[in-house]
């Protein structure tokens, strides 16, 4: 299997999460989309829901979102979320 995904989760005023992860699950307007390495390039509009990052270098993360979009190209995922309320970052135990 190819290397991990490069994930960036950005909000209008800051970068919420940045790093590498194995998997990303996002709620698109047509249903949940799960992205692994080697996925075809996709650009998709998101609805309200939860973006989940799994298998990150420093744990998993979840973000509650009101909308946004996700773009995937060459194993680089950019999730643009708008406006967002960060929920508890699951799996991140004693990182701080």
């Amino acid at each position, binding site marked *: 299997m190819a290397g991990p995904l490069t994930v960036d989760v950005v909000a209008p005023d800051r970068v919420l999460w940045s790093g590498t992860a194995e998997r990303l699950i996002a709620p698109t307007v047509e249903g949940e989309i799960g992205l692994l390495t080697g996925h075809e390039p996709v650009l998709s*509009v998101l609805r309200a829901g939860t973006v989940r990052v799994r298998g990150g270098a420093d744990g998993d993360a979840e973000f509650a979102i009101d909308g946004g979009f996700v773009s995937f190209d060459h194993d680089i995922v950019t999730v643009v979320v708008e406006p967002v309320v960060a929920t508890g970052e699951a799996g991140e135990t004693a990182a701080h």
Partner: protein
Amino acid sequence: MAGQQRVYRQKIRATSSLKKIFRAMELIAASRIGKARLRVEHATPYTRAITRAISAVAAHSSVDHPLTTARTDTGRAAVLVISADRGMAGAYSANVIREAERLRGRLQADGKEIVQFAAGRRAVSYYAFRRRELAGQWTGASDAPDRETAREMARALFERFQASKEDGGVDEIYIVGTRFISMVTQQSQVLRLLPLEIVEGVEETEEGEIEPLYDFEPSAEQVLDALLPRYIESRIFGSLLHCAASELASRQRAMNTATSNAEDIIRNYTRLANQARQAEITQEISEIVSGADALAAS
């Protein structure tokens, strides 16, 4: 003679109270600029992500959308000028307005009619003084812009772009603002917002590589529809943040210069005052001595 001294003393007092004001303004600007720079940095990834996505759609799909196709039916162009609310920032606002006037000349030479928008009290009063009509104006938060203002501006501009010719629709949207490059360099610039001008960040397909087939969900048109307002808003907000940081940097620099000028003036006046005092003393002594001489001679 004593009057001369008093005049100098007065000037010194006045200049030193001005100096205090300049110093305070400088410190205020300096304390705010860190935050403004941080906001620019934090907002950049978002703007970049949206621009990349837009470029990807433009490059990988063949949909007919206002974003990708130029409109030429109205013969009008909207120009948004972003300036400062207050002065005391050197040539900051003047530079932006000069750039805007240059753009205006260029567009008018092309036979376009200008629909003027202005942000910041300086630009608003400039156009009000010249009795030019403003299609929209925003004042009051030039050094700390918020998203609400950006959203309002985006809505006003986008409405113009979508409106028909009769309702005052426009072909193009320009933003004239200042780009914050570093603490010492700020460049006033013209940015064409719509139709899309820059296609940056889209990777060139290497030779032999098949152009990736993008999958748009739900469809390219709908993706564009969802992206477009965000794109405009984020570009405007990004510009506002850049302008705020530039304004503060200009103000800090201008006030720093003003403070050292005030110091120079105080030094000069102190010398003149000392000279005047010395001259007065010398004269008094010579008067006394010659008076005594006259008495001794008689």
